[in-house]
């Protein structure tokens, strides 16, 4: 097991008579995305502020690479803080400075870089965050979503090793929420920093998190992967996860994972034994490449569109679907066999070829330029399941059967859309 990058050992914090953190013990690992979840007012932001040094614990120790922060000398402490960036819940943008100046501030004040180099780095971040038109505007002139992107760009401009995100998607609509989360995930993968996030955006954060820390009743009650959290039985799940998760996923309108599994097992109970069902797995390739070319909003629109197409086609055959991963959907057809499922799949492919490109272009508000053309590849795999096999096993088998089913061409000519025969 790798040594943790940051570790809390029996950390407690009180404000007067109110205990906010009670003997917290947790580990955060390098180059991973860790999300802290919990009810409002449970102390998530307080926990985060201990890492950045805005708060000091009343009891316990915080360790960095095995060494207690309280034992670090001045230069070690300075080096530690220099590696950390923080994105505030309320953005904390300097409202008397333009977007450009806000993002440039850490480089101007803390480095000896020349003006030209600072300009290059800042403009790179501005372009990545799709803020070119807003560079000379002031924060009060921007929408909430744009302010979030400015705060994110500012947090990343110094190429930090550790980035703390305090509720980065608060107040955002489902599309914007997923855009912000996908940007965080993309940058985390690309630049390899350790991301520590506080969020209520369940289940969206599951798609981008390596580890989940659950804060409940002033204590950490769970540390593990999102998959391990699914099997974790604790009042926390009922009180926090289920209340935040809701019945449907906000972006696509499909079932949440929990609801999908509940319905899956209910359908199995209803079915006579040995009567088959089908699981279909869909995935979209090269989403990262797409977001680099056409922006995160376009990607989120495509995911939403795909979810709706799947639900429309397979829902009419009694099926129900769930967004299983960032670019993956799973559908259960409880009343169909493999042959019938193939037929439904063919109709689905034909429909998405005929209407998909047009619908996606209509839904994308910013009307990205597809002049250079881009091909979106859709994959699908089917697997017939039996009642005595677990859903994960059937899904994995369907993944093994995955093949290309369609190529959607975006560009000057849509005539290049291809249907791949099964």
């Amino acid at each position, binding site marked *: 097991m790798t040594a943790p990058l940051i570790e809390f050992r029996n950390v407690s914090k009180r*404000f*007067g*008579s*109110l205990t906010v953190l009670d003997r917290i013990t947790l580990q955060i690992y390098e180059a991973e995305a860790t999300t802290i979840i919990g009810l409002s007012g449970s102390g998530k932001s*307080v926990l985060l*502020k201990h890492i*950045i*040094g*805005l*708060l000091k614990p009343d009891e316990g120790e915080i360790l960095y690479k095995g060494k207690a922060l309280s034992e670090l000398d001045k230069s070690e402490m*300075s080096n530690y*803080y*220099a590696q*950390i*960036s*923080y994105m*505030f819940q*309320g953005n*904390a*943008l*300097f*409202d*008397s400075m333009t977007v450009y100046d806000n993002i440039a*501030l*850490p480089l*101007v*004040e*803390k480095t000896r870089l020349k003006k030209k180099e600072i300009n290059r780095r800042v403009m790179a971040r501005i372009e990545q965050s799709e803020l070119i038109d807003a560079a000379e505007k002031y924060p009060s002139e921007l929408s909430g979503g744009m302010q979030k992107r400015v705060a994110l760009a500012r947090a990343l401009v*110094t190429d930090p090793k550790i980035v703390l995100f305090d509720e980065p998607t608060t107040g955002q609509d489902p599309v914007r929420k997923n855009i912000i989360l996908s940007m965080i995930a993309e940058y985390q993968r690309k630049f390899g920093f350790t991301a520590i996030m506080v969020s209520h955006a369940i289940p969206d954060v599951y798609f981008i998190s390596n580890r989940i820390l659950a804060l409940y009743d002033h204590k950490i009650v769970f540390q593990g992967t999102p998959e391990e959290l699914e099997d974790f039985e604790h009042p926390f799940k009922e009180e926090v996860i289920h209340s935040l998760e809701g019945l449907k996923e906000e972006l696509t309108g499909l079932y949440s994972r929990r609801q999908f599994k509940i319905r899956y097992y209910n359908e199995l109970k209803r079915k006579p034994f040995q009567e088959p069902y089908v699981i279909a797995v869909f995935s979209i390739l090269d989403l990262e490449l797409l977001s680099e070319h056409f922006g995160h909003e376009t990607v989120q629109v495509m995911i939403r569109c795909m979810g709706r197409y799947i639900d429309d086609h397979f829902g009419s055959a009694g099926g129900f679907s769930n967004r299983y991963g960032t670019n993956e959907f799973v559908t259960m057809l409880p009343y169909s066999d493999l042959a019938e499922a193939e037929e439904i799949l063919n109709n689905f492919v034909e429909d998405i070829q005929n209407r998909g490109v047009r619908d996606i272009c209509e839904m994308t508000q910013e009307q990205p330029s597809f002049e250079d053309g881009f091909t979106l590849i859709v994959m699908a795999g089917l697997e017939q399941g039996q009642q005595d096999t677990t859903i994960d096993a059937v899904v994995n088998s369907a993944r093994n059967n995955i093949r290309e089913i369609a190529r959607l061409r975006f560009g000057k000519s849509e005539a290049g859309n291809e249907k791949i025969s099964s």
Partner: protein
Amino acid sequence: MEIVMTSVTEKKERTGKAQTTLLLKLANPFAAFGRGVINIINDLGAAAVFLLLAFIKIFHPKQLPKIIQQVYFIGARSVTIVILVGLFTGMVLGLQSYYALVKFGAEGALGTLVALSLIRELGPVLTALMITARAGSAITAEIGILRISEQIDALYTMQIDPVRFLVSPRIMASLISFPLLTAIFDLIGILGGYLSGVVLLGVNAGTYYYRVQSSVEMKDITDGFIKAIVFAVIVSMISCFQGYFAHMRKESHGAKAVGYATTSAVVLSSVLVLVSDYIVTSLLL
């Protein structure tokens, strides 16, 4: 220093302590008095440390652009109000002094009276009060809002010293601006005295200027500038201190706390300008 590194969330501890303090005041007046004195001394100490740190951090690379910006805000943008107040102060001084002096046949001494009153007293004091009202309140409000909106915390997380970034340039800019504005006030005030005394009331112009020239010594001007510098330190330090710690006020939160901090800054600065005026005058004379 801990006091200058406090963040917004530490305020909760102080609120708890304030409630306990009220109960103790009722139970034991002597202890309450003692505690009050200790709190005042504690705050004075914190303010002194704050000022010392801010002053030391003036001498840091990259401060010059910020200092120039603050000189523009505190100094250049106060010129109009200083000219206006200086002109009318000089005019009313000329007017009042004429009618007092003419009783003794000494209206020829008008120039002396106007010049010395302005240069030694009214110039530094009224300039300081005008800048307190215009720039001091704005400084407190601005820094207070930065505090409650977590922008100061954001500076801290970026490893940018908030005191160096926000406070030091304002103190240095005040040290530059106050004497210059005082000089402008004095000159315009003397001109105002000319307008009312010579132009309106018929005092001989030559006599007026001769009296101004012969009675004003270098020491008078230096003393006036010394006062201006003392007032600069007082006003800038109090304005910045009140804004920087607006979140720690016991009686209010958020925007209200910033409002109270601004009011406190203006009142405290004005009172201390007048008190220190007496102290400095008695030391210089």
